[in-house]
């Protein structure tokens, strides 16, 4: 496999890891909005 192809594949892998991390972070960051309400209801 050419070095260039390997690098491109590595880029796809890194982008996928970043996108998964972004999904995880974004989901929890948005959901955190409801925390004051949950706290209020405790």
């Amino acid at each position: 496999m050419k070095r260039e192809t390997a690098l491109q594949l590595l880029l796809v892998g890194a982008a996928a890891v970043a996108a998964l991390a972004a999904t995880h972070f974004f989901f929890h960051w948005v959901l955190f909005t409801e925390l004051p309400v949950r706290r209020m209801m405790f």
Partner: protein
Amino acid sequence: MLFLGGMVYGEIVVGVAAAAVAFQIVVMVMAGRRRAAPLPMKVHAAAGAAIALTAAAIGVSTHAARAIAFDALSVRGHPLGNYLGMLTGLVGQMTAIAFGIATIVLALTFWFAGLAFTLSKPLADGQARGFPPAALVGVGLLPVVYGALRWSRDVVVPFNTLEDIPEGQRGDVIERTMDVARAHFEHAARLSMVAIPVLAIVAAILIVLRARNAAARRAPSHRTTAALVAGFLALAALMFVEARPISSENDLPWPPRAVGHRLPALDPPTPDLSGPDQVEWAPVVQASPDRLGLDGAEIPDFATLYDRLDLLRVNYKTIHGGPDFNDMAVILADPRTPMARLHSVLQAALKAEYHKPLFTFTKAEVIQRPILGRLQRMNASGVRVKLAYADGKNAYGDAAEEDDDDEKEAALWKDAVPLRPGDFATYDPFARRLVDLRAAGTRVVVRIDRPRR
């Protein structure tokens, strides 16, 4: 603080977002109309930075709104101030998130279009660069982004209709709304979590196929690619670290919501018991061996207690109309209180026409949260009794018992067991007896002596 459309620093956020979108449009038009060499990549990088700046502005606005909501929780003063702070904080967050998603998606669309123009234009060697297949992975974020937009709408809409819902059911409605909205959002996030690896595999296949093709397009330099790989991995690490505390807070379930009305006063400490009856909105009478109180205010003597209770009932009936009055006084009493003293409290209550007081027991519940730390609440429950004069006569001294209940209510108390305060030395054994009787399904009538004139 500036508010626009409910957003904190709204004017600044809208200004930054509008400038960023306008910048993308200008860059896109420039890239599309370029005849000779393609637009330098630096221009697209700058346009991308403008989008990142918008995201940062949204983040700052959301966090400021979040701080307002949390501040509202710590206010123990005016209940309306508390409520308004909570509402401002919630609306601020929801609006910023929804506005942010909409404008960032719009700006990114223009940014990609501009970039597509530039990448499709041939360079000096006659080859065009084309989009790196890795960009496909970004499409996998669409479900979670849509999920967040839908979540903010799902949560906000029922809040607007809360006025139409009876006060006692609002907590249930809010909780159910948040649970349903969260379930939808979780589903969207899971969809992204599946879509991203699938798209990555598709991108990898494309790369391998292109590598086999002799007329492959020009790829970015090794240095650029290596820098992108490092950047993505660093970004991923940062987001995982940042998500850890908030995800542990979000994922830890809350205990069931407290039932019944919240007490405005929590002292004195009561016997360590639980009763089956719920606290309703009612005056809170506090009694201990040396102090008397009503709704948290000190009361000098039993005559004053009667006066205040009587005034509260009259006021309540004036405001709400007669039939809704629940006959309840919440009694918070120290277990060491002599029964003779409590007897005087009950005399004041019955004279003021609180026929069905609730002997109330408070229990502290402590939980530990990952971010919020140690939280404590007082759970209140009680035993509701009926008060009657020991001579069997009503308040006016007539032979018939004081009973303006409807038939159903009267049947409930028909077989009630009578208890006399004089048979107990202090409140503690009396309270335990009450709980035992109620636990056995029995209702209790407390028979007290008629006050001397």
